[in-house]
């Protein structure tokens, strides 16, 4: 059917982009100063031992061979061994990725639901006192650095009021049978609250302002005027025609925001000691744990690229002008 073709062509583009990302990542880590094994090799190793290690990791081979070995391993889901943990990188990433995704999506969903509703409401109350009051606040939250906001929330809700825990994903000493029971536990959710709130406050400005300005534009469209001339109900005019059309670009921005949010996560995960991919990335880079950093970078890139694909596909689904063109 007509919907299959765009999906296929987008998927093909996605594979191309992934390949480019993988190649850049590969070269980037080879261009970094110093021996990649510097952190791994103990100074007490003999020269033979060091050379044996270099051979073992394939670093004595040509760059091109290394590149193809790397691609081949990636295709099998093989991301190498972490220098620091001495465990497979993939294992480590699979352990941390859910935490990052839960934090990212929960905060974005909260931010977008709030932003869309508040944005539509502000458009409705245009040039009112509420708008004069709300817009500067929204702009201020948009301008706040998220680490600062995180620390302020920590100071208030954790250190002063003691409502929410200060960091991590669970209280010390608690054990859960499965990941699912962990993620659905009240303990996990109370740990999630503050970092989620920080990111949600940080990111609600975009959907709110976008929704508001789209709504203002759409409400000036002829079809909205015609809906009034037709005598349709205010609900039909504002929600079914106004908001439905204003929502289109906001949905795209949601998918793209996931990418930005993952950057924001690096900071917020550090502030809240949230064991996610962002925090791991920071510590891997500072510990010169190149395989792990490379894997984390790759994973973040994959999520961003996937979300862009979803944004494209979502748009063809939401806007008939694109899917039927």
């Amino acid at each position, binding site marked *: 059917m007509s919907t299959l073709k765009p999906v296929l062509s987008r998927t093909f583009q996605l594979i191309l982009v992934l390949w480019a990302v993988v190649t850049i990542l590969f070269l980037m880590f080879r261009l970094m100063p110093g021996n990649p094994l510097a952190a791994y090799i103990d100074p007490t190793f003999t020269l033979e031992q060091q050379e044996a290690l270099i051979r073992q990791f394939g670093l004595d081979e040509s760059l091109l061979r290394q590149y193809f070995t790397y691609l081949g391993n990636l295709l099998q889901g093989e991301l190498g061994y972490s220098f620091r943990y001495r465990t497979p990188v993939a294992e480590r990433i699979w352990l941390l990725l859910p935490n990052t995704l839960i934090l990212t999506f929960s905060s974005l969903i909260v931010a977008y639901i709030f932003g869309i509703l508040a944005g539509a409401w502000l458009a409705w109350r245009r040039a009112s006192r509420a708008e004069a009051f709300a817009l500067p606040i929204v702009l201020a939250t948009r301008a706040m650095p998220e680490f600062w906001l995180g620390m302020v929330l920590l100071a208030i809700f954790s250190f002063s009021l003691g409502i929410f825990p200060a960091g991590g994903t669970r209280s010390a000493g608690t054990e859960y049978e499965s990941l699912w029971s962990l993620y659905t536990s009240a303990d996990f959710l109370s740990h999630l609250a503050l970092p989620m709130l920080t990111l949600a406050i940080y990111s609600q400005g975009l959907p709110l302002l976008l929704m508001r300005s789209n709504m203002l534009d759409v409400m000036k*469209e*002829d*079809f909205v*005027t*015609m*809906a*009034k*001339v*037709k*005598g*349709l*109900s205010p609900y*039909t005019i504002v929600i079914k*025609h106004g908001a*439905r*059309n204003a929502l*289109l670009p906001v949905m795209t921005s949601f998918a793209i925001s996931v990418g930005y949010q993952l950057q924001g996560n690096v900071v917020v995960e550090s502030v809240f000691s949230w064991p996610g991919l962002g925090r791991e990335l920071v510590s891997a880079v500072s510990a010169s744990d190149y395989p792990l950093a490379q894997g984390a970078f790759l994973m973040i890139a994959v999520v961003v690229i996937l979300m862009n694909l979803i944004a494209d596909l979502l748009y063809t689904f*939401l*806007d*008939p*002008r694109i899917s*039927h*063109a």
Partner: protein
Amino acid sequence: MSQPLLSVKNLSIVYEVPNLDVVAVSRASFDVPRGSIVGLVGESGCGKTTMARAFTRIISDNAKITEGSMDFDGKDLAKISEREMNDLRWRDIAFVPQSAMNSLDPVYRVEYQMHEVLRGRGGMSRSQAKARAAELFEMVGIEANRLRDFPHQFSGGMRQRVAIALALALNPKLIVADEPVTALDVIVQRQILDQMRALQRDLGISIIMVTHDISVVAYICDRTVVMYAGEVVEDCETATLLSKPLHPYTMGLKNAFPDIASAGTGILTPISGAPPDLARPPAGCRFAARCPFALDHCRSVSPTLMSFGDDHSVACHRAHEAEALRAQAALPETWGEIL
């Protein structure tokens, strides 16, 4: 003659801009007889669209009806409550917009937008609405299976037909059509106009046709109301308007449009100058500055719309000399010198 369907009296509409009032429509009066097509003609900015919108009372937030009445079937559209007005909208007074592309919501199928009025305003059941929508499409000459299409899948002419079908949906008494064929090529224009004429005859509705194109007026309208700078300057049957215009502006308009029937000289004579600023209208006749026949009296005293002959109203101090003026107006040099 029976009571007109719509009787507009002394209607004034003002746009309130900070520190400034722009009088877009100034004490306009005219009637729309039952079962007729009335053209509302004038150049851009003369207030014709503002007035057309006023009949649905969906006007800009900063526009206000400051005086006058619009007597529609015994109800004054300027006075009735918003609730009463909303009851009339689309059920009795429908609207065909200029750009049917932008007037249809791009994300919904045409069928959905048809059902919105049929079920939402007409109280029909789903199956009734379905049958009626198919019937309406047939009336405007589109296959019923196109109902499942989205607006962007129609051509410009088809979309205009869809807009007409939508306007007919609830059997209104009056359709206000705002430049319904302006964006279309002449062949499609003619098809659409023919269709509107046929539907209007079959269904006995009245149409107000807003246009700047005097050939559209000549082709389809029974009566024509000429507007200039927010005022009605002439109002009579179209045939009379074209053969014996009384107002110099109408004479000038005629000269400015190509006439295929008497394509002799091939020269079009424009009316030089521009309409006055409606925020600061001049004293006297508003057309005086561009009128080749203006006298001192015209520049100081504003003419009122007066009945002249049977069923012919005009706002001109020199209307009694119209015959002589028409002869002069036919000469291009008459219009040449004024700047």
